[in-house]
Every structure is written in C-alpha cells, then in structure tokens.
C-alpha cells in the first residue's frame, strides 16, 4: 500500500513506515532517547530526501517523547526544574544549529559534518557506555560488590556561580553546566536530525550524576522542547516538514513508546545501557564507514533549492 508524500514528493510504503515508527518508538520509550539517530538514516535509506527526513523526524520525536514522558511523569520520574533548565539551553542551541546547518548546506559540507558527528559522538558515547555497563554486569555475575560509587562530582561543578536546588534530583549545583549541556544538545539535534537523548542521558548520569530514576524522564522532557522548536523552525525556514510522513511515523511511534516505557521497568538498568550502547556504536560506525570507503559513484546530486 504505497502512499505519495506531498512534501517529500516520493511514494513510499505506508505500513512499512508505521512499523518503523513502532520499532523506533519502542526503543525510544525504553531508553529515554528520541530515536532520531536510528530513524533518520533509515528514512534516507528508503529514498526520502535527507532534508525532509531530518525535519519530519522532529515531529515523530516530539510525539513519541510526549507519549512516554507522561508515563514517566506518573511514576514521578521527571525532574521538571532540571528539564526546564536543560530546555532553556536547548532553545538557544537549536537556533544556532539551524543556522549552522544552513551554512553547511551552502558550502556543500552538510553530509560530511553529519557523518563525522555520527561517527565521533556515537562511537565515543557507545564505547564509554558499553565499557561501563559491561563492567557492572560482570561484577554482578561474579558476585563482587560494586566499587564504592564515586559520588564526588567534578569539583568545577561546585565552583560555578548561580547555584540552584533540584530537589527531585537531590542536587544543589550551578545552572551553567545544564544550560551548556542543553545548548550543545540543541546544536547537535539540528545538525544530526536527532533529539539528542543519546548525549543527554550519559551526560546526566556521568557528569551531573543525577539519580538513575529521573534521568530518562527528564531527558525526554528536554527532547520534547527541542523537537517542537526544531519542527516549527524547519517548517518555517525550510518548508521541509512532511506532515503525512510525520503522521505515519508517529502512529507507530506513540504506541511503541508506551510499550517501551513499560518494558524498561522489567530490565536491569546496566543491561539496558549495554544494549543501547551496542545500538549506538553500530549506527555510529555504519554512518562513519562511508568516509573511508571509496565511493562507487564519485558524484552526488544535491537539492538545487536552498530553503
């Protein structure tokens, strides 16, 4: 059952898109990530123009994150105040990122930056998470006690001004690190067409050292804000949001996210992190591979219209 997408101007298989949305939504709800880093490459692979894929993705990310953030909210697993501070940074980052992406498209280097960003960020984060989570799993198998949790956060985290209390996360830190983190994720989300959860979740765990229980819900909150903003900006500036594509994806996405959020309660946190790390590593290496392999076709066509 093929359907013609009015903005992407291609014909695609509708049930396939719904199924794709369902699968990515499940992963999204389970790990508290937007799932954009999985979905965007797959849409491009299906023949949807990258600019449309990136822009329409943000609607799908917003919908599935909305669906699961409510589920987390009911379990009181969302730190609204921390989410707000991160989102404020994200708003600034998204504006910067959209402008940066326009400049890169003009220079013809958007592909390169996208590939390099995927390779660098996904490999580093995937690698770190894998090492850490495998270590935790091995220790548990051997019955060794966990190493004493290094609860001391980096000292600079306390040296900064503008301190704020985050009761839900049991933190009293400066707002500068979360603001910077939010802005950085905002830039990434505009450039890579992702929500940025795969950066946010590890940063909240390892740098801010927030309690594991609130990390996923809070990151989803920040992702919604960034995705909504990116969606509106992309539609307004570039006219690249395909509402039919987004609707098909989110039909599956919202349902998948619900099951994902439920399933996540049944697994151990370190096992979830190990699986996520493997997915992240795989996508990063796959996207980066193109940089090293001699292309069969030395030329690439780009859209003649620049939004």
């Amino acid at each position, binding site marked *: 059952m*093929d359907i013609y997408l009015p903005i992407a101007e291609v014909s695609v298989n509708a049930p396939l898109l719904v199924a794709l949305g369902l699968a990515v939504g499940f992963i999204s709800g389970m790990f508290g990530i937007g799932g954009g880093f999985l979905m965007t490459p797959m849409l491009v692979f299906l023949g949807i123009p990258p600019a449309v894929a990136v822009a329409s993705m943000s609607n799908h990310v917003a919908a599935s994150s909305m669906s699961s953030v*409510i589920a987390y909210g009911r379990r009181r697993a969302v730190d609204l105040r921390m989410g707000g501070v991160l989102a404020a940074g994200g708003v600034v980052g998204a504006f910067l990122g959209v402008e940066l992406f326009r400049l890169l498209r003009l220079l013809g280097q958007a592909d390169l930056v996208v590939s390099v960003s995927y390779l660098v960020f996904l490999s580093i984060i995937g690698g770190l998470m894998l090492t850490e989570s495998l270590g935790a799993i091995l220790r548990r198998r051997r019955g060794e006690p966990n190493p004493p949790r290094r609860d001391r956060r980096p000292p600079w985290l306390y040296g900064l001004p503008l301190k704020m209390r985050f009761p839900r996360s049991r933190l009293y830190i400066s707002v500068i690190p979360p603001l910077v983190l939010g802005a950085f994720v905002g830039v990434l989300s505009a450039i890579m067409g992702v929500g940025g959860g795969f950066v946010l979740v590890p940063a909240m765990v390892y740098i801010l050292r927030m309690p594991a229980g609130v990390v996923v819900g809070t990151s989803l909150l920040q992702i919604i804000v960034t995705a909504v903003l990116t969606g509106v900006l992309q539609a307004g500036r570039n006219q690249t949001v395909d509402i039919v594509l987004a609707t098909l994806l989110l039909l599956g996405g919202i349902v998948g996210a619900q099951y994902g959020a439920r399933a996540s309660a049944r697994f151990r946190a370190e096992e979830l992190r190990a699986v996520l790390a493997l997915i992240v590593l795989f996508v990063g290496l796959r996207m980066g591979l*193109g940089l090293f392999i001699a292309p069969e076709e*030395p*030329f*690439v066509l780009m859209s003649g219209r620049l939004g």
Partner: protein
Amino acid sequence: MAVDAAPPAISAALTETTVHVSSDFRGASIVLYGAVFEPDSRPSDVVVIVRGPEEPVRIARKMRVAGLWLNSRPVVFQGAPGFYIAASNRPLGEIANFGTLRRLGAGVDHLPIRAPAEQRVETRYGVRDVVVSSLGADYYDWRQAVVRLKQKAGLYDEDGRGVRFVDRGLFRAEIALPAGAPTGVYRADILLFQDGKPVSGRVRTLTVEKVGLERTLYLWAHNRPWSYGLASVVLALAAGWAASAAFRRD
C-alpha cells in the same frame, strides 16, 4: 499525378493532458499518438522530446583528502529540465548528425546544461571572448555525472526504440513518469525528420499537478509555513498525549 502536393507534416496528441498527483500516485504512463502525412513516401523518422520544468542542479564530487572521502565545493548547473525523455523510432545518432541534435537539444548528451558560475570569458592565444570553465578538463565528467545521476533516478531517458509505427504513417510513444517527477508544465516536442533534417514539428503541453489533500497540504506548507509547522507539531503532541491517555486505562 500529384507532383507538388502538400509538404510533409506531422500531427500528434496526448491521451492525457493533465496528470493528477494524489495520495496513491506511483508514477504515470502517458501515451502519445501521432500521424505522419507524407505524400511522397520518403523515409521519415519521428523524435518525441518531453521536457519537465527547469530546475537548477547542485552537484558535488567526492574527493579523497587525508584518507577521508569528502565532498568538493558544489557546482550549480543551470538549464537542466526536471524531467527529460527523448524517444525516437531508431537511435538518435542514426537519424541526424551531431550539430542538428545539439541545436535541437535532442538526446541527453545535447541538453543545454551549463555551469555559468564557473565560466569566465578571457582572451587566449590572441582569440577574444573564449569561454573558459574553472572546472577545466573535468567539465565533461561533471556534465555527464549530472545526466547519469538523473538517469539513475528515472528522470532522464533516451529511448531509441520509444516511438513505434503501428500502421502506415501512424505512430505511438509511451512516456513513463516516475513518482519523483516534478510538478509543473511539461512540453512535448514532436519532430519529423527526413534526410537528417527536421521538416515538421508539433508542440503539446502536459500538466503535472497535485490534487486534493496533497495539493492542500503542499500549498499550506509553502504559503503559510509557520502555521503549518505549528499545526503539525501540535498534532504530534496531541497524538502522543492521546496514546498515553488511552494506555492508562488498561
């Protein structure tokens, strides 16, 4: 005996003059019928050229820099139609010579595509007004790449058997429009060749347009992009909230 009868002429019609792009659009096939009026029964060739609306093309070349494959600076080619097919009853090279084909823009090698931003006019070897491209000797590689990539997408084609004579003087051609064909006004040139020279021609137009919901959405997205963006985001958030509410009960 009719000695000086009417000159040879060609006539043609499209079975459809409008292609509607709706949600089930998966490409279309346009049939063109025509007749050759040739009192002297001299050998005739028919060439049908269909051109879509013109769109500039940006193309980049992958280059190896420090072990990595990177894109070069993109080059903009002007004059490239968004869709192009040249169908004829035998290969174009057998019908007319290079100069004639070039002048008519018949065949993918003769499309008037050029990269004006890369050109400059200078004096070389004492000859004034020589057009030089900054792409240098690679210029033809670039040009061919544009055509090759468009052919791969099904947007350009050259079919040396695309026009068939179904009866004496009566011919038929079938034009396949892929789902990715641009919307707009297409121009079909139907040319009659004798002894390698075009002797008669007809022009027909074909409109490819979005209809129904597709058209409404497309116009909304382009004319009121901000309200469209807001609406699609609100729809997304509402759907997410609805799913969460629906799942709460069970």
